[in-house]
């Protein structure tokens, strides 16, 4: 009996008119928790009622506190007939159960109705008194913290990383119960919303229990998904990484280092619902029966280059990146014992945690759904996932790795067929976090210290026993270990990685038609198509990567979506040039029938085009890899050299480009075989995505390599498109349409966000679905972040000494001596002095550039100003971002996880502006509700935000539509760095604001 929940209903505003006669409303409120309900008095004839109720007290088990939401229903009193519901608010109590999170929920929350959307707001106060017998829990797990963020949250440090936790709960879907035939759509929707709230509460509690059993106190990288299996039920499942976290006290850091600005550390969060990763090279022979498993993995390839800058840098890292967040390496005593699955949902790690990366491992399996008969025994689903995880584990082993990082799971369901997918990156982790690393850890450890910039690229597997064909070379950084020629991973780019140039979003898109079939036949057909699909996606990725002159992919997500007549595959990743890996060969086109002269000519023009594109891309992404310099070997601090290269201008690089051109002709060039002229065109069209417009960069990882000086202007957005196909398209036609759909969507985004230029679209997360025959749905959530081109020195703020050194080279020419430590120190001090100037000078520069440059870029300055003036306004600004950080700001507190599920339905689709109007409103409402709940918790931002599910169904003939959205993220409080040192910001905000399209906050 350890908890008392207290709620007080203060007031309402903007209520809808419920009584036509008086144009007013007689509102009252029901507050329900579990089976207990309280009511307020009726506040007659007002659209802005002031109930000011007493405190309603619920005495409940903490188990219930975790499972149940507080349900607030606003009704209109009617003397003669039944009271009309205005709408509901569900409040997740969970953040109040943890002492370190929020203490009170207080604020205006939108009143939501599944048919009418938001109908006014209600002001509530909610508190929880927990009694302190916390030891006896068996069933509850109050106090375990949950984070969507897939890295160690800033302002915490990991004492220990325990490992993988997973759980799933199943239930019947209320929408498919018999009673649904007789109840109203509203009742049905509400039953569903409530059930999902309950299920996710239960799931979270169960996961919490597992974490407590393991001795942890938090779950990081918590990824919860729904499988709407239709007739056969509803599955809510979650995975995460159990950790023991320790709060870092906030005191000195701010004062001592002016550097602790924003995040240079990248972290990423759980993918939106459905991504299905995995890279195929080889694939298991598909067996036809139901429950057939199929899988594949891809190799990776890696390299390094001149190694790293050693201890100095290491020791400085904590100061720089995650402000307060020293990911501390625990002393070797509390080892963590991996249980069955050494999987980690994290995508970014404390320095030193990740030793080697093997490559992407993925597994898929096609299952036939059958009714879940007993909700209390979800064994079937468990067994399915078990199978897949086993497979992943064995793939990792084949790559010589004992762990899988950046791990995620997803499903795609069409009628009774379900594809389960799991993927991750095989890796070797530091023994400091593990007890029984299978590898020669001493050695690895040593190596790691020597070369953090390239160490992770070194192959973990046995050179003579490679599980797949790969070309190995000596690391281009340290020259001591072998690296593969290409590296694919699902994780974020490690902060310490040596990268040349900038990165970019790379997508492979594929459509495959499939015959309509039923049951097992269907499952079989899908199973046999999958390997080809994956293979083609992989080839496309590889080609596009080479076309950009890059050699590694990060954040790879492969999503495969199944429909009745087609399969859709979308692979997204961020391509980069890892300095440690060899420069990629070109792409060579070869005809199969080299007889015809015109055909030959055609091929050679195509070849030329491709070569030109590669050159252009290299210039665009500033990929000027260092020549292979022999003297570098053995040099203890070769790092400055690279850094200087990063900043080389284009003109300087031209000679290098020509040198690289040679490699196009090399024999290791990737050969594309083509058998007819059309195919050449196709390949060209497929490969050459239209370039991003000037001033834009894009990636699907947390941050873009090569860009650091973010301004505070961020704009999170969601965009959804549904495309109707004509019947009877060929595979090629489909491919083209699908590819264009994605490209056009990107183009629209660039256009929309043009006022933020120069900017980078980060964490571009595409989700594809086939809502019904001949429809393709693409949803994107991402954040646009502006950065300052003009102020390379601002870098200093973000990545500490490392960048300061960069700064030095920028200032004092690239002629570098790979100097001594003393030299560094002096340059660092120098830098500190300089910085004072630069901040002032830099910002003035910005001002002028803003004025004269494009007419658009005022978003940033405006946002600063508006933040300030907002304080007087009645609605607090809440920022949202899919990233784990907010540029230019410091997260000082995590308030708890936001996990919300909404259904919206309409039977007056035309009146609500058609499908677009309907969905537009709904998404805006979802944003509004997330913001309101975060604000009520006392927060001012949501980080690691994701829209995991967006299921849209329409029936235009009946003028109906329905949409389900599930979103999640971490509510936080952040403090602007500008509030600490406001000089530069003020100058910026003083810039004139003129033109159009501004946004900012």
């Amino acid at each position: 009996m350890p908890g008392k929940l207290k709620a007080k209903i203060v007031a309402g505003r903007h209520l809808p008119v419920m009584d036509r006669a008086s144009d007013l409303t007689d509102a009252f409120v029901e507050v329900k928790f579990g089976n207990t309900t309280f009511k307020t008095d009726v506040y007659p004839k007002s659209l802005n009622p002031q109930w000011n109720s007493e405190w309603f007290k619920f005495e409940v088990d903490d188990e219930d506190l975790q499972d149940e939401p507080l349900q607030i229903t606003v009704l209109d009193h009617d003397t003669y007939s039944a009271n009309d519901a205005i709408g509901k608010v569900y409040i997740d109590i969970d953040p109040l159960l943890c002492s370190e999170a929020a203490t009170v929920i207080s604020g205006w929350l939108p009143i939501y109705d599944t048919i009418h959307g938001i109908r006014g707001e209600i002001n509530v106060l909610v508190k929880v008194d927990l009694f302190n017998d916390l030891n006896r829990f068996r069933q509850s797990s109050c106090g375990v913290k949950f984070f969507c963020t897939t890295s160690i949250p800033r302002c915490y440090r990991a004492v220990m990383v325990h490992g993988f936790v997973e759980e799933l709960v199943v239930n019947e879907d209320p929408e498919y119960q018999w009673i649904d035939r007789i109840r109203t759509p509203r009742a049905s929707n509400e039953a569903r919303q409530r059930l999902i709230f309950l299920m996710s509460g239960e799931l979270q509690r169960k996961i919490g229990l597992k974490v407590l059993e393991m001795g942890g106190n938090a779950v990081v990288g918590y990824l919860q998904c729904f499988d709407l299996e239709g007739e056969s039920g509803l599955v809510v499942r979650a995975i995460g990484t159990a950790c023991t976290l320790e709060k870092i006290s906030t005191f000195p850091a701010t004062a001592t280092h002016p550097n602790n600005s924003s995040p240079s550390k990248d972290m990423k969060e759980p993918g939106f619902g459905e991504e299905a990763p995995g890279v195929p090279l080889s694939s298991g022979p598909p067996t036809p029966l139901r429950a057939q498993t199929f899988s594949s993995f891809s190799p990776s390839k890696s390299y390094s280059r001149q190694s790293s800058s050693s201890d100095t840098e290491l020791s400085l890292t904590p100061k720089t990146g995650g402000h307060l967040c020293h990911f501390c390496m625990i002393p070797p005593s509390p080892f963590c014992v991996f249980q069955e699955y050494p999987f980690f949902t994290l995508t970014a790690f404390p320095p030193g945690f990740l030793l080697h990366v093997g490559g992407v491992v993925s597994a898929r399996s096609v299952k036939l759904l059958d009714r879940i008969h007993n909700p209390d025994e979800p064994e079937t689903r468990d067994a399915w996932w078990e199978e897949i995880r086993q497979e992943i584990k064995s793939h990792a082993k084949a790559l010589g790795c004992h762990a899988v990082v950046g791990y995620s799971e997803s499903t795609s369901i069409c009628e009774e067929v379900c594809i389960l997918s799991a993927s991750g990156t095989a890796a070797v982790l530091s023994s400091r976090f593990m007890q029984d690393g299978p590898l020669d850890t001493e050695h690895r450890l040593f190596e790691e210290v020597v070369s953090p910039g390239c160490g992770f690229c070194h192959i973990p597997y046995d050179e003579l026993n490679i599980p797949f064909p790969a070309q190995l070379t000596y690391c281009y950084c340290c020259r001591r270990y072998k690296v593969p020629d290409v590296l694919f991973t699902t994780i974020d780019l490690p902060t310490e990685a040596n990268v040349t140039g900038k990165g970019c979003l790379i997508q492979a898109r594929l459509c495959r038609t499939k015959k309509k079939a039923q049951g097992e036949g269907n499952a079989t057909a899908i199973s046999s198509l999958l390997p080809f699909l994956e293979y083609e996606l992989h080839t496309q990725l590889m080609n596009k990567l080479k076309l950009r002159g890059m050699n590694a992919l990060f954040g790879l997500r492969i999503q495969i979506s199944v429909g009745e007549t087609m399969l859709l595959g979308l692979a997204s990743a961020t391509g980069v040039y890892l300095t440690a890996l060899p420069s990629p060969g070109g792409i060579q086109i070869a005809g199969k029938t080299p007889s015809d002269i015109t055909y030959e000519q055609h091929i050679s023009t195509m070849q030329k085009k491709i070569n030109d594109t590669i050159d252009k891309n290299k210039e665009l992404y500033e990929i000027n890899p260092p020549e292979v310099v022999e003297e570098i070997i053995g040099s203890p601090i070769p790092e400055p050299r690279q850094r200087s290269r990063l900043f080389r201008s284009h003109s300087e690089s031209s000679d290098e480009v020509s040198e690289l051109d040679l490699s196009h002709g090399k024999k290791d060039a990737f050969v594309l075989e083509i058998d007819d002229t059309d195919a050449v065109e196709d390949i060209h069209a497929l490969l050459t995505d239209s370039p991003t417009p000037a001033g834009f960069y894009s990636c699907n990882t947390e941050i873009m390599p090569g860009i650091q000086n973010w301004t505070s202007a961020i704009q999170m957005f969601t965009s959804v498109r549904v495309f109707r196909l004509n019947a009877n398209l060929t595979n090629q036609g489909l491919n083209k349409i699908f590819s264009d759909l994605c490209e056009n969507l990107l183009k629209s985004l660039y256009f929309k966000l043009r006022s933020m230029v120069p900017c980078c679209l980060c964490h571009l997360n595409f989700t594809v679905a086939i809502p019904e025959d001949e429809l393709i749905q693409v949803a994107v959530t991402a954040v646009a972040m502006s950065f300052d081109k003009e102020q390379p020195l601002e870098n200093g703020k973000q990545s500490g000494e490392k960048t300061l050194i960069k700064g030095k080279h920028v200032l004092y020419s690239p002629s570098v001596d790979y100097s001594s430590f003393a030299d560094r120190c002096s340059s660092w001090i120098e830098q500190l002095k300089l910085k004072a100037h630069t901040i002032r000078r830099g910002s003035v520069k910005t001002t002028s550039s803003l004025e004269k440059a494009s007419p658009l870029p005022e978003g940033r300055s405006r946002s600063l100003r508006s933040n300030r003036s907002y304080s007087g306004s009645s609605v607090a600004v809440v920022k949202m971002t899919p990233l784990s950080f907010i540029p230019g700001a410091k997260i000082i507190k995590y308030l708890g996880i936001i996990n919300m599920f909404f259904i919206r339905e309409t039977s007056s689709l035309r009146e609500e502006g058609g499908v677009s109007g309907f969905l537009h409103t709904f998404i805006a409402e979802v944003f509004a509700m997330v913001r309101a709940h975060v604000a009520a918790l006392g927060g001012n931002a949501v980080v690691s935000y994701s829209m995991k599910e967006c299921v849209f169904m329409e029936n235009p003939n009946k003028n109906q539509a329905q949409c389900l959205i599930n979103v999640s993220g971490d509510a936080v409080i952040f403090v602007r760095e500008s509030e600490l040192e406001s000089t530069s910001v003020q100058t910026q905000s003083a810039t004139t604001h003129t033109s159009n399209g501004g946004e900012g906050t």
Partner: protein
Amino acid sequence: MSVELDVFVGNTTIMDKEVYQLWLNGYTVNDAVKVRIEGGVMEECEASAEVLLSDTMDQYRTFQMCERLLHHPAKLANQLLFQIPPDRQAMLIERYYAFDDSFVREVLGKKLSKGTKKDLDDVSTKTGITLKSCRRQFDNFKRVFKVVEELKGPLVENIRQHFLLPDQLARDYAAIVFFANNRFETGKKKLQYLTFQDFAFCAGQLINNWTLGAVDNMMEDMDVDLDKEFLQDLKDLKILITDKDLLDQHKSRVNNETSHPLSLVCNALRGKTNVFNEMEANFKNLSRGLVNIAAKLINAKDVRDFFIDLVEKFIEPCRSDKWTSIDMNLYLTHYTNSAHILDTFKHHAVWTRYMGVIKSCILRMYHD
């Protein structure tokens, strides 16, 4: 193959000023796209017509969703649906309530009724402003009118507070409300040369000096209606024209003053003796005109004709005599002042209150 659904929602609502203006101007999506293409955004941003169409539709949808909030601008600040920075909110409101001078001239002083609204298509044809835009402007007038009609306190201030409008725009709306309430005739041919701003200026003068609120801040409806008592008192001014002695005295004093060799402006006007000759000749007519206007203002019907009377009785005669504004100013100053020195004239306060407004209105309405 077609895009069936296409939405973009930003956490901070993205609104393009240019598209907003097109929307306000009542352009259809397709027309707006055409305008934008001509404006050259495409080249600037490497966009295609398709992208532009999608963007425009999206923005239009956003504006439509916001429109309901714009009807009660105070709601915009504390609604939760759209996160819009305050300066953007101010821009949205200001532009939504902005109006075309050519449109407002058509409806100024008319009753803001359904009947007038029905005639808006004629106004649209005449002014070239789209019907949609006309309706928005008309509805804005009506909405502001309805809200402030029932409020106590200063008119301009009420408008500014309820509709969060910038000062100048609030003043303009005050003028529109004031004109609509008193039904001043502004549409006659003779008044066509006057701009909205001329009328707005006059409205400001009337509101500040002739309404009840000008005297007592706490009175109800004070700024919208003219001060009845004052209008009653104006009748007493008739003595200036009915009393023959007074009229002559007044005339000679004005003439003395204006043609006095020591008068400051005298030198400047020396070459224009004929103006003064004519003035002398016209004095009785002009004075009779002004005083008669004053005396009749007690009748609502004559209030409506206030501006037309001013033009017919005073401005036109002066214009035909080719007076300059400076002449006019000089004349009106002396005309007002010299009345005070008349022995038997007692109504100094009323005279000052009346002539102050008349003088500034005439000067504003007198375009050389």
